[in-house]
């Protein structure tokens, strides 16, 4: 049995402004062991990025409130840390790959300096200037950039290459956890395949735990071990990759997501979209968040928040399965 590296319990995050409250994350829980990859899938506004920022302690101070839950990194609750202590964790033990490599880098610093910065700030091993330079060069080669290019500036790199630089920054301190927030969304497919391979190879090499945030089920299928499908700030279905991608019981939203994907092999021309729109995150519904768009919605769905149905590690947050279970008894 591997040791649990990250354990998120019942995390809730709200954004409060004078006008309204946005319920971005509403009680999500998951745990990760060393070397595992969790895929968080969902559409815009599902709360994926907010979850990631919450774990890193990077939520906007003025509006965001963590209203409940725990984030345990090797049994240490990150939410109880002071900002100064959190700074030590961030970048060295947990790091993040940002979505848009075009804006994530500082345009006026050479990339070598930007990669080395993380190491200067978290220099626990007492490395000398020379050793840091050497580590920067090693990391660059690891992500497939010739080390001679470390003196160049971000504008001299293409999109795919910049994302490699961002990955190098995230990996130089050899973190326990890597949060990748849509790392390939801004890239072309052939470059996406290259970047995903790099992340996967490095993960194997260093046993890094990865949280892969994406809206692309294809990316999930290729990289993840566990999958959490998010909707309305909740994980509506959670399980091993096999649980989600095989013909088992599924949450109606998961089914809808799969059905609405244009397929590369199927014969039907028409697509089957999920009708309706994403829910308004400022209104907390009484029942299930998905109920207004759900084809199998029942009376109870509109009134009560659904409990979690479990089959080993496979969890589904839906009334449907409880009703079925009751009917079967």
């Amino acid at each position, binding site marked *: 049995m591997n040791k649990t590296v990250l354990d998120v319990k019942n995390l809730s995050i709200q954004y409060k402004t004078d006008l309204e409250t946005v319920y971005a994350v509403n009680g999500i829980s998951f745990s990760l062991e060393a070397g595992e990859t969790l895929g968080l899938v969902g559409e815009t506004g599902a709360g994926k990025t907010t979850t990631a920022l919450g774990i890193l302690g990077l939520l906007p101070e003025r509006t965001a409130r963590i209203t409940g839950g725990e984030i345990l990194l090797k049994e240490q609750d990150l939410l109880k840390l002071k900002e100064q202590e959190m700074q030590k964790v961030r970048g060295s033990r947990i790091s993040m790959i940002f979505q848009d490599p075009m804006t994530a880098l500082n345009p006026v610093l050479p990339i070598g300096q930007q990669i080395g910065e993380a190491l200067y700030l978290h220099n626990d091993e007492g490395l000398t200037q020379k050793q840091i330079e050497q580590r920067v060069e090693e990391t660059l080669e690891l992500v497939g950039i010739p080390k001679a290019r470390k003196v160049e500036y971000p504008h001299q790199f293409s999109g795919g*290459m910049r994302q490699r630089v961002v990955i190098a920054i995230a990996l130089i301190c050899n973190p326990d956890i890597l949060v990748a927030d849509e790392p390939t969304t801004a890239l072309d497919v052939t*470059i996406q395949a290259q970047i995903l391979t790099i992340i996967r190879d490095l993960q194997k090499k260093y046993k890094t735990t990865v949280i892969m945030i994406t809206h692309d089920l294809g990316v999930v299928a290729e990289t993840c071990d566990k999958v959490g499908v998010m909707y309305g700030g909740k994980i509506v279905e959670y399980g091993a990759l096999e649980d989600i991608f095989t013909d088992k019981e599924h949450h109606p939203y998961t089914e809808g997501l799969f059905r609405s994907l244009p397929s590369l092999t199927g014969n039907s021309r028409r697509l089957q979209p999920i009708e309706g*729109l994403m829910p308004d995150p400022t209104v907390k519904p009484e029942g299930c968040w998905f109920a207004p768009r759900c084809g199998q919605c029942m009376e109870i769905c509109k009134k009560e928040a659904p409990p979690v149905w479990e089959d080993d590690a496979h969890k589904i947050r839906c009334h449907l399965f409880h009703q079925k279970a009751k009917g079967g008894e």
Partner: protein
Amino acid sequence: MMGENLIEVKHLKKYFTTSSGMLHAVDDVSFSIEKGKTMGVVGESGCGKSTLGRTLLCLETPMAGEILFHGQDIAKMPKREMKKLRPKMQMIFQDPYASLNGRMNVRQLIAEPLLVNKVCTSRAEVDERVNKMMDTVGLASRLAMAYPHELDGGRRQRIGIARALVLEPEFVVCDEPVSALDVSIQAQILNLLMDLQETMGLTYMFITHDLSAVRHISDEIMVMYLGKCVEKADAKKIFIEPKHPYTKALLEAIPIPSIESRKKERKLLAGEVTSPVNPAPGCRFAARCAMAAEECKKEDIPLSEIKEGHYAACKRAAAP
């Protein structure tokens, strides 16, 4: 059975002058689209697919070549005459967040093309056509007074579609109309576009980088690489039997949402797209191609018919 060609493009070229030389955005592209059909154009960023779409509508002046619309060459047409043709050729833009004027409400946005082109004689007629159009694209009439910032991406894209279609065009260039949308909304918009094509008899050019979406909506697909069309074939055939090494690599690179895809060893395409500024002669893809031979780098390789209706610009693909 051959239908009438609505659009015929012959040896179209569009170069841009940059400080470092000529940028070959569209380089000698020829194709035709039958009335009522959809031509899908796929390729990575910088391959010239958007420029092709814009040049087709004469939003960019072509450098050389002909664009025949109903047999009339619009590339050399005087501006005044072109203006009369504009309502017949419309465009749906990529980003529904940036392409709508934030100071106009939905009704004004959809009415704008009618007013600009002076197609309606009375205020009442404008209102009638706007209302009808909102209904057609699935915008509830209560949204008529809403502003774009109040609406989500899917609804904004419906406004974009309504603006293009309110003039009852014959030909519509869709430039990545669903790339900015979520999957569940994307499917709604793709279905809407297909339904409208049927009811209004539209001809589409569908530009995208998403191969799986293009397969659903297109009759024919054209794959572009650095300004050149490298493969052109029936939409179904190109997925079953890709001929050009670039098309193969592109198909290989798509992550497939199924558990089997994990086990498959992928052949990764090395390197990145080379610069379109003053490209070297020969096959543009040769630098990244695993099958490239010396002869590929010597001269431009034209599209040649490999099978009936299946064209590829590759020496290796043509060989049996």
